[in-house]
Protein backbone atom coordinates (compact mmCIF):
# COMPACT_ATOMS: atom_id res chain seq x y z
CA UNK A 1 0.00 0.00 0.00
CA UNK A 2 1.39 3.40 -0.97
CA UNK A 3 2.26 5.65 1.92
CA UNK A 4 1.62 8.77 -0.11
CA UNK A 5 -1.52 10.45 -1.38
CA UNK A 6 -2.10 13.33 -3.76
CA UNK A 7 -5.16 15.50 -4.26
CA UNK A 8 -5.11 17.56 -7.45
CA UNK A 9 -7.41 20.55 -7.09
CA UNK A 10 -8.26 22.86 -9.99
CA UNK A 11 -11.09 24.89 -8.47
CA UNK A 12 -11.57 27.69 -5.96
CA UNK A 13 -14.62 29.95 -5.68
CA UNK A 14 -15.62 28.97 -9.23
CA UNK A 15 -16.63 25.65 -7.67
CA UNK A 16 -16.49 25.90 -3.86
CA UNK A 17 -18.07 22.47 -3.53
CA UNK A 18 -15.10 20.80 -5.28
CA UNK A 19 -12.59 23.03 -3.52
CA UNK A 20 -14.04 22.01 -0.16
CA UNK A 21 -14.33 18.31 -0.89
CA UNK A 22 -10.75 18.26 -2.20
CA UNK A 23 -9.48 19.47 1.16
CA UNK A 24 -11.83 17.15 3.05
CA UNK A 25 -10.22 14.20 1.27
CA UNK A 26 -6.76 15.66 1.81
CA UNK A 27 -7.51 15.87 5.53
CA UNK A 28 -8.71 12.29 5.50
CA UNK A 29 -5.44 11.21 3.88
CA UNK A 30 -3.14 13.16 6.18
CA UNK A 31 -5.26 12.07 9.13
CA UNK A 32 -4.70 8.48 8.04
CA UNK A 33 -0.96 8.92 8.29
CA UNK A 34 -0.27 9.38 4.59
CA UNK A 35 2.36 11.77 3.31
CA UNK A 36 -0.18 13.99 1.61
CA UNK A 37 0.18 16.54 -1.16
CA UNK A 38 -2.44 18.96 -2.42
CA UNK A 39 -1.50 20.18 -5.87
CA UNK A 40 -3.27 23.45 -6.68
CA UNK A 41 -3.48 24.40 -10.34
CA UNK A 42 -5.67 26.46 -12.69
CA UNK A 43 -8.23 28.39 -10.54
CA UNK A 44 -7.27 26.30 -7.52
CA UNK A 45 -4.10 28.36 -6.99
CA UNK A 46 -6.24 31.12 -5.48
CA UNK A 47 -6.71 28.90 -2.41
CA UNK A 48 -3.02 29.41 -1.62
CA UNK A 49 -3.61 33.08 -0.83
CA UNK A 50 -4.13 33.91 2.85
CA UNK A 51 -7.66 35.12 3.47
CA UNK A 52 -9.08 34.00 0.13
CA UNK A 53 -10.98 31.02 1.51
CA UNK A 54 -12.28 32.78 4.60
CA UNK A 55 -15.82 33.12 3.27
CA UNK A 56 -16.17 29.66 1.72
CA UNK A 57 -18.58 27.65 3.85
CA UNK A 58 -20.31 24.82 2.04
CA UNK A 59 -23.43 23.48 3.72
CA UNK A 60 -22.68 20.29 5.60
CA UNK A 61 -18.92 20.81 5.51
CA UNK A 62 -16.29 22.35 7.74
CA UNK A 63 -15.41 25.88 6.54
CA UNK A 64 -12.69 25.75 3.90
CA UNK A 65 -10.29 27.98 5.81
CA UNK A 66 -10.38 25.57 8.74
CA UNK A 67 -9.83 22.60 6.43
CA UNK A 68 -6.77 24.24 4.89
CA UNK A 69 -5.36 25.23 8.30
CA UNK A 70 -5.90 21.77 9.74
CA UNK A 71 -4.27 20.17 6.72
CA UNK A 72 -1.15 22.27 7.20
CA UNK A 73 -1.09 21.67 10.97
CA UNK A 74 -1.28 17.93 10.38
CA UNK A 75 1.81 18.06 8.20
CA UNK A 76 0.25 18.18 4.75
CA UNK A 77 2.05 19.85 1.87
CA UNK A 78 0.56 22.22 -0.68
CA UNK A 79 2.20 22.67 -4.08
CA UNK A 80 1.07 25.68 -6.09
CA UNK A 81 1.44 25.62 -9.88
CA UNK A 82 3.86 28.38 -10.74
CA UNK A 83 2.57 29.41 -14.21
CA UNK A 84 -1.06 29.26 -13.02
CA UNK A 85 -0.16 31.48 -10.06
CA UNK A 86 1.81 33.91 -12.18
CA UNK A 87 -0.95 34.15 -14.80
CA UNK A 88 -3.37 35.34 -12.12
CA UNK A 89 -0.88 37.87 -10.76
CA UNK A 90 -1.19 36.57 -7.19
CA UNK A 91 1.12 37.44 -4.31
CA UNK A 92 3.88 34.92 -3.60
CA UNK A 93 4.56 36.63 -0.26
CA UNK A 94 1.02 35.95 0.98
CA UNK A 95 0.84 32.16 0.94
CA UNK A 96 -1.03 29.98 3.41
CA UNK A 97 1.00 27.72 5.70
CA UNK A 98 2.68 24.72 4.06
CA UNK A 99 2.26 26.14 0.55
CA UNK A 100 5.13 26.38 -1.91
CA UNK A 101 5.17 27.59 -5.48
CA UNK A 102 6.53 24.85 -7.72
CA UNK A 103 6.77 23.86 -11.34
CA UNK A 104 5.84 20.50 -12.81
CA UNK A 105 9.01 18.70 -11.76
CA UNK A 106 8.00 18.58 -8.10
CA UNK A 107 4.63 17.01 -8.92
CA UNK A 108 6.23 14.56 -11.35
CA UNK A 109 8.77 13.55 -8.72
CA UNK A 110 6.14 13.04 -6.02
CA UNK A 111 3.86 10.93 -8.21
CA UNK A 112 6.69 9.00 -9.86
CA UNK A 113 7.90 7.75 -6.51
CA UNK A 114 4.52 6.05 -6.13
CA UNK A 115 1.34 7.83 -5.14
CA UNK A 116 -2.34 7.56 -5.96
CA UNK A 117 -3.89 10.85 -7.05
CA UNK A 118 -7.50 12.00 -7.01
CA UNK A 119 -8.59 15.09 -8.92
CA UNK A 120 -11.27 17.67 -8.18
Amino acid at each position, binding site marked *: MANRFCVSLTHAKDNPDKATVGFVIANAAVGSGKETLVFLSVEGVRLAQKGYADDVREEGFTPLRELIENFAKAGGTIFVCSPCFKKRKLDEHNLVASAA*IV*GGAKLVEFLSEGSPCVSY
Partner: protein
Amino acid sequence: MSPDPSDRRDADREWDAGELGCGKLLVELRFRLEGMAPGQELKLIAFDAGARADIPAWCRMTGHTLMTQQHPVYRIRRKES
Protein backbone atom coordinates in the same frame (compact mmCIF):
# COMPACT_ATOMS: atom_id res chain seq x y z
CA MET B 1 22.88 24.30 -0.17
CA SER B 2 26.42 25.15 0.85
CA PRO B 3 28.79 26.70 -1.66
CA ASP B 4 30.89 24.23 -3.60
CA PRO B 5 34.57 24.89 -4.34
CA SER B 6 33.94 24.11 -8.01
CA ASP B 7 31.67 27.17 -8.17
CA ARG B 8 34.78 29.35 -8.18
CA ARG B 9 35.67 28.38 -11.72
CA ASP B 10 33.71 29.49 -14.74
CA ALA B 11 30.89 27.26 -15.89
CA ASP B 12 31.33 25.67 -19.32
CA ARG B 13 28.10 27.25 -20.50
CA GLU B 14 25.61 29.77 -19.21
CA TRP B 15 21.91 30.08 -19.96
CA ASP B 16 19.68 32.92 -18.83
CA ALA B 17 16.20 31.39 -18.90
CA GLY B 18 14.58 34.62 -17.76
CA GLU B 19 11.00 34.08 -16.61
CA LEU B 20 10.61 30.64 -18.19
CA GLY B 21 9.12 28.13 -15.79
CA CYS B 22 7.58 24.69 -15.37
CA GLY B 23 7.49 22.46 -18.45
CA LYS B 24 9.00 24.96 -20.89
CA LEU B 25 11.99 25.59 -18.63
CA LEU B 26 12.59 21.89 -18.01
CA VAL B 27 12.40 20.81 -21.65
CA GLU B 28 14.76 23.59 -22.71
CA LEU B 29 17.08 22.66 -19.85
CA ARG B 30 17.09 19.04 -20.97
CA PHE B 31 18.01 20.03 -24.53
CA ARG B 32 20.85 22.22 -23.31
CA LEU B 33 22.33 19.57 -21.01
CA GLU B 34 22.08 16.98 -23.79
CA GLY B 35 24.16 19.28 -25.95
CA MET B 36 26.99 19.34 -23.44
CA ALA B 37 29.72 16.80 -22.71
CA PRO B 38 29.55 14.60 -19.61
CA GLY B 39 30.98 16.39 -16.60
CA GLN B 40 30.56 19.87 -18.08
CA GLU B 41 28.78 22.47 -16.00
CA LEU B 42 25.94 24.80 -16.89
CA LYS B 43 25.23 28.03 -15.07
CA LEU B 44 21.46 28.48 -15.21
CA ILE B 45 19.68 31.70 -14.36
CA ALA B 46 15.95 31.13 -13.82
CA PHE B 47 13.75 33.74 -12.20
CA ASP B 48 10.53 31.75 -12.02
CA ALA B 49 9.50 31.22 -8.39
CA GLY B 50 8.87 27.56 -9.08
CA ALA B 51 12.50 27.00 -10.04
CA ARG B 52 13.56 26.95 -6.38
CA ALA B 53 11.81 23.64 -5.90
CA ASP B 54 11.79 22.39 -9.47
CA ILE B 55 15.46 22.49 -10.39
CA PRO B 56 16.58 20.29 -7.45
CA ALA B 57 13.71 17.86 -8.16
CA TRP B 58 14.57 17.79 -11.85
CA CYS B 59 18.22 17.04 -11.09
CA ARG B 60 17.27 14.22 -8.70
CA MET B 61 15.07 12.65 -11.37
CA THR B 62 17.42 13.05 -14.32
CA GLY B 63 20.69 12.22 -12.60
CA HIS B 64 22.40 15.53 -13.30
CA THR B 65 24.14 17.05 -10.29
CA LEU B 66 23.00 20.32 -8.76
CA MET B 67 26.29 21.78 -7.61
CA THR B 68 25.01 25.02 -6.13
CA GLN B 69 21.68 26.77 -5.80
CA GLN B 70 21.29 30.41 -4.95
CA HIS B 71 18.07 31.50 -6.64
CA PRO B 72 17.96 32.63 -9.40
CA VAL B 73 21.38 31.11 -10.11
CA TYR B 74 21.84 27.34 -10.35
CA ARG B 75 24.92 25.40 -11.33
CA ILE B 76 24.35 21.97 -12.83
CA ARG B 77 26.92 19.33 -13.78
CA ARG B 78 25.92 17.10 -16.67
CA LYS B 79 25.74 13.42 -15.80
CA GLU B 80 28.32 11.01 -17.18
CA SER B 81 26.03 9.06 -19.49
